[in-house]
């Protein structure tokens, strides 16, 4: 193992913004900024209280659009897989995050931040299986 492409400053600043966004949602609306659960509930829940979920998702899209329009130099998208592999990966992420009640944001940031044992175990689990997967795909296949 050797270290490459390390970008500590943009990582810390970007991370702090993610934390700030999650803190804002928690402090004002009392909700967890977990993207997989917000999206899943937006897809299947129809209640008077679901508007904020669509607004949050729209905010994510607006960030992407804004970057593309005004800061195209900041947008990097280097895909690591072809279409077939992306569909399979998407299915695994979709089923896995609903079964496991969360993803990198809900478990990895909010859950660990709340010192939830479930989220700590979940985060370790998807980190380990993600690392194993990359090892197999990049170095064994």
């Amino acid at each position: 193992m050797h270290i490459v492409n390390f970008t500590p400053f943009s990582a810390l600043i970007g991370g702090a913004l993610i934390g700030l966004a999650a803190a804002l949602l928690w402090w004002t609306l009392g909700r967890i900024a977990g993207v997989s659960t917000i999206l899943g509930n937006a897809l299947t829940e129809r209640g008077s209280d679901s508007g904020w979920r669509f607004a949050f998702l729209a905010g994510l899209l607006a960030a992407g659009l804004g970057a593309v329009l005004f800061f195209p130099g900041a947008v990097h998208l280097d895909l690591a897989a072809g279409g077939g592999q992306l569909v399979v990966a998407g299915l695994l992420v979709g089923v896995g995050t609903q079964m496991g009640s969360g993803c990198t944001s809900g478990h990895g940031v909010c859950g660990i931040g709340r010192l939830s044992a479930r989220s700590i175990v979940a985060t370790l689990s998807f980190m380990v299986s993600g690392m194993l997967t990359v090892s197999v795909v990049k170095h064994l296949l």
Partner: protein
Amino acid sequence: MKRCVIAFLSGLVFGIGLIVSQMSNPAKVIGFLDITGSWDPSLALVMAGALAVFGTVYWSIRGAGAPLMAERFVAPTETRIDRPLLAGSLMFGVGWGLSGFCPGPAIVSTTFGNPLVWLFVAGMIAGMLLYRFLSGRRVMTGAPRSV
């Protein structure tokens, strides 16, 4: 309406954070997961930065009875480390490693103009719906199901 404005702002700042930290770039994520090869530790600092800010706010306002603009805090109440948590998280990790995408960055990068991202998101949405309909869990607030 005010709640939606705040939620939009939160999503916006969240998305900017993903782009600034390059979490929205699959190659960057794969570089972090590739500990047996050329390792890029950046995403560990993304998490550290996010945890430092969220954790500070979460624990500082812990005594507050209610959030500023809602009746109560809605956090998961389940504490058991059960099989769905482990199996689901492991499965998610495999998909994450195969693609370099987790849900937030995938949604943000649908706007980047590469239609292949849409294939991932279509698969992800299909997977979410599939699990929810098969398991009968339509709503998951993390709060007790009765409220």
